[in-house]
């Protein structure tokens, strides 16, 4: 019995080897990061398309854990145009949150490192490569050029400070316009009204525990909008809320989209929310993008079997089916992924070519791209 128990667990020798490897690799990265006085030329770059707010270019983010290297994001390339909303869809473990954390450089170091790739952030007159920027520069960017709305509104606010103080803190930290205190208070009340809080003066003085989940999420949104950021990352903002409150928040976000000129990166696993909010959709699976395109492409012409499966497995009100379609199998453990299509073991539409290496990206149209062997022939014929 004891032998059976230890089978499937790492042996001490293996785990030591893994630890040694991890330490070696992370030390290298940490050394580079901890340099002082990094010249701007190192992280100054050019946007490939000036109409994009953020460009992810072959991003690789790895976590060096005790059980092995987790390739959370393994070669992700997409753009977020200015003023548009990009929805990133995927299930837990696909790497969508890690992508946004890489953009904000909020990864848990030393285990989490961006090992390869670039993230180009458009700051108007110049562009920075966020992966190479040091912490001091990142501090000026966070909250200012890039802001984030988190998933859990109940814990996102500091319970010992008033709402007004917390929003003013963001303004005061990045005070580029040189606002006075009275002006900051005015702007805070303005923001609270913009997010649909009726009693803005009252809420300004309240503590977070006096507000409900929906109200707190509105406050978090107000904080995100405070410094007119270029990109807002919304990481599953409505998952923890009730359906009616979710409706309110989505309404609010849609209205704001027209007023402000920021791009929104909307991360979620709910296809319905994506359909409402997003202009472009990126579908991720096990750290890689399997399909991307406009909302119309994805919802009306889904190409990748995973996307098709996802849409089919969600029950829709009004459509009566006997057995719900479900994608067989489960999301794989991201450690030591093999070199063939990650979805192969679950896919019901495999073709011969699927036995080969990981498929490359194929363009089905100008906007619609997919990584699947089913479209290889079609692409070859076009060539």
């Amino acid at each position: 019995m004891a032998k059976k128990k230890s089978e499937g667990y790492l042996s001490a020798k293996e785990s030591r080897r893994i630890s040694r490897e991890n330490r070696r690799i992370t030390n290298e990265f940490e050394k580079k990061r901890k340099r002082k006085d990094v010249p701007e030329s190192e992280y100054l770059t050019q946007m490939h398309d000036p109409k994009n707010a953020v460009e992810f270019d072959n991003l690789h983010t790895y976590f060096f854990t005790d059980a092995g290297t987790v390739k959370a994001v393994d070669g992700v390339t997409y753009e977020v145009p200015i003023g548009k909303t990009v929805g990133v869809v995927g299930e837990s473990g696909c790497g969508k949150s890690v992508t946004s954390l890489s953009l904000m450089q909020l990864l848990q170091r030393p285990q989490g490192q961006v090992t390869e790739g670039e993230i180009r952030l458009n700051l108007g007159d110049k562009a920075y490569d966020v992966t190479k920027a040091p912490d001091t520069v990142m501090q000026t960017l966070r909250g200012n050029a890039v802001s984030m709305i988190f998933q859990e509104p109940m814990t996102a606010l500091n319970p010992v400070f008033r709402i007004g103080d917390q929003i003013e803190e963001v303004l005061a930290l990045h005070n580029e316009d040189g606002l006075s205190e009275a002006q900051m208070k005015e702007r805070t009340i303005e923001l609270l009204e913009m997010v649909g809080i009726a009693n803005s003066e009252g809420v300004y003085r309240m503590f977070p525990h006096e507000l409900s989940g929906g109200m707190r999420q509105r406050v978090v949104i107000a904080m995100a909008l405070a410094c007119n950021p270029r990109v807002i990352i919304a990481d599953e903002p409505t998952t923890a809320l009730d359906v009616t409150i979710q409706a309110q928040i989505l309404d609010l976000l849609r209205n704001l989209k027209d007023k402000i000129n920021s791009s929104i990166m909307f991360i979620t696993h709910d296809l319905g929310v994506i359909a409402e909010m997003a202009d472009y959709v990126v579908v991720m699976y096990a750290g890689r993008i399997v399909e991307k395109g406009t909302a119309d492409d994805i919802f009306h012409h889904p190409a990748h079997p995973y996307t098709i499966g996802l849409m089919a497995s969600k029950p829709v009100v009004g459509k009566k089916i006997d057995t719900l379609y479900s994608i067989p199998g489960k999301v794989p453990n991201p450690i030591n992924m093999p070199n063939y299509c990650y979805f192969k073991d679950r896919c019901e539409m495999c073709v011969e070519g699927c036995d080969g290496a990981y498929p490359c990206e194929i363009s089905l149209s100008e906007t619609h791209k997919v990584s699947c062997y089913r479209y290889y022939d079609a692409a070859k014929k076009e060539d």
Partner: protein
Amino acid sequence: MSETKSKLVIDNDFTPVTYDPQYILMVNKLKKYFPIKGGMISKTVGYVKAVDGITFNLKRGTTMGLVGESGCGKTTAGRTILRLAGEKTGGQVLFNGKEVYDFTAKEMRSMRPKMQIIFQDPFSSLSPRLPVGEIIGEAVREHNLVPKAEFDDYIDNVMDQCGLQPFHKDRYPHEFSGGQRQRICIARALALSPEFVVCDEPVSALDVSIQAQIINLLRDLQQRHNLTYLFISHDLSVVEHISDTVGVMYLGNLVEYGQTEDIFSEPLHPYTKALFSAIPIPDPDAKMNRIVLEGSIPSPANPPSGCKFHTRCANCMEQCKTVAPEWKEIRPGHFCACHLYDDC
């Protein structure tokens, strides 16, 4: 016979129902209040009216969906029916004709295998320091449901039905993904050969593709073992798929109840209508004529007078503010509590 009596009986004016054998569960004006203690000597200053009088019957082998938002009391209702939340405050719960709250502690323990529950959070409902085989098998051993010789095979069989493999028996819960943990919870409930299972938001914490698998699994098990489900959820699309009857709760009351097709094709109560319109549809071209409810859910400790929904209702009338509406059968098999249908 009954040595357990309700400690707090606020309103005992229900007419006891007679047992109808086709219903495995009959709930009659069930109430569950939680006292709020305040002041220096912890006097009871008020009550949180978590469940404020719900009535429904559940036919054997069917699934009833119970929907509502957070704070409406559906989870408390599920646990109160199973006698997992202390004493009831009022009403009746008849399981197979017998009042659940009249059992002695010993009788209750032997009744437990028949009425099981699957919890919402698969991680916190599994004991962190026990291997999975133990978690699934300990109650079976406790109640001696299976002779010792067949025990291992029985557990393997149960795990197989739930999509787990035998080598999982020695692993610990934290090594599994969310979907698999939920399968372990289902296996734990199934191992006791229950008749009635309360599924308390079993798929809310899971990914979409796994949700479908778990729902199919539950359906499959229901057909195989003739189980009866009380499916509690806030996800209307899932509830529509799996349930035969649906009840909608708001702030401790049932506002509407009926067959699934009836409720979803013709919702009567304003809250139900608003709820249905709030579901996001995965089609970017769909027209959104959403009824957006103003305000937020009131506190169950201090519910509004009259109809509890009147503060947020678009169709609010004068009498809604003072008089609570009656629970009436508006169409055959379709119940509702709303003043709009007072003259039906």
